[in-house]
């Protein structure tokens, strides 16, 4: 594979992702849901991929290690990192990387801003490189989903059912 451009050369704006959600709950409960394995195991796995490995040393400098298991019973590659900053009920910053050789690291900043009983949860991810962001967010494509890939996948599915 071609050599990666050094991350420092790529502006953060080109390799970040921002997810914002206003929740009808106080910040301290959202913070709690993030800080304890028994809660994390309930919600952190995406649909169909529950978290089945959840080791976390929730303190600044502490490490975590997660893996999910899909419907086929196969565990996904473990991933993990380090809690870089923790401000109770306000902010959690952690690094995250897959345990595969050559995997790049993303840094995720989660902020909890409470106002009138509602909390704005912000998940700001900075990927190591534009290529990494492209892989994770756009499935490997710079310009959205088009590029004929959808058509290709349709063909593959049609072929399998033929």
């Amino acid at each position, binding site marked *: 594979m071609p050599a990666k451009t050094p991350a420092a050369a790529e502006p953060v704006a080109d390799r970040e992702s921002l997810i914002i959600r206003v929740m009808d709950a106080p910040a301290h*409960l959202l913070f709690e849901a993030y800080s304890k394995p028994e809660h994390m195991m309930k919600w952190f796995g995406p649909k169909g991929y529950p978290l089945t490995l959840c080791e976390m040393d929730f303190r600044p400098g502490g490490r975590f290690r997660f893996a999910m298991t899909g419907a086929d019973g196969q565990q996904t590659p473990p991933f993990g990192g380090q809690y870089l900053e923790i401000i109770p009920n306000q902010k959690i910053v952690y690094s995250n990387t897959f345990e595969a050789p050559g995997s790049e690291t993303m840094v995720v900043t989660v902020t909890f801003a409470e106002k009138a009983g509602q909390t704005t949860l912000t998940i700001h991810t900075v990927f190591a490189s534009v290529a990494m962001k492209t892989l994770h967010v756009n499935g490997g494509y710079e310009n959205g989903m088009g590029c004929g890939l959808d058509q290709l996948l349709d063909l593959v599915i049609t072929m399998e059912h033929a």
Partner: protein
Amino acid sequence: MSAVAQLNLTFAALADPTRRAILARLAEGEASVTELVEPFELSQPTISKHLKVLERAGLISRGRNAQFRPCRLHAAPLKKAAAWIGNYERHWEERLDTLESDVKALHAKEKHHARKDTRRR
């Protein structure tokens, strides 16, 4: 090969429009290199180079017949790749749905306890 390494190979292979076009052609059935060269304005060595990338990524296999070595598409890695398309933000939205309902349940419990505490006082 790890699942992540496979995914990287798949996406690297799919990043090129010529390789995607080759895969689309192979989705219709096996083809020899000569047949694959025809629709493209590219030389045979260039097409062969693309085929090698696709073969390394496990997206196609080549037949043993030395003369024709027909190329055949392998769909499994593509399906895995499809499951990952745009997954990061979508997965987060799904997680946050679950987080929201879990935290609402926690909140209800907390309010319930708070009411009990008030009554006790």
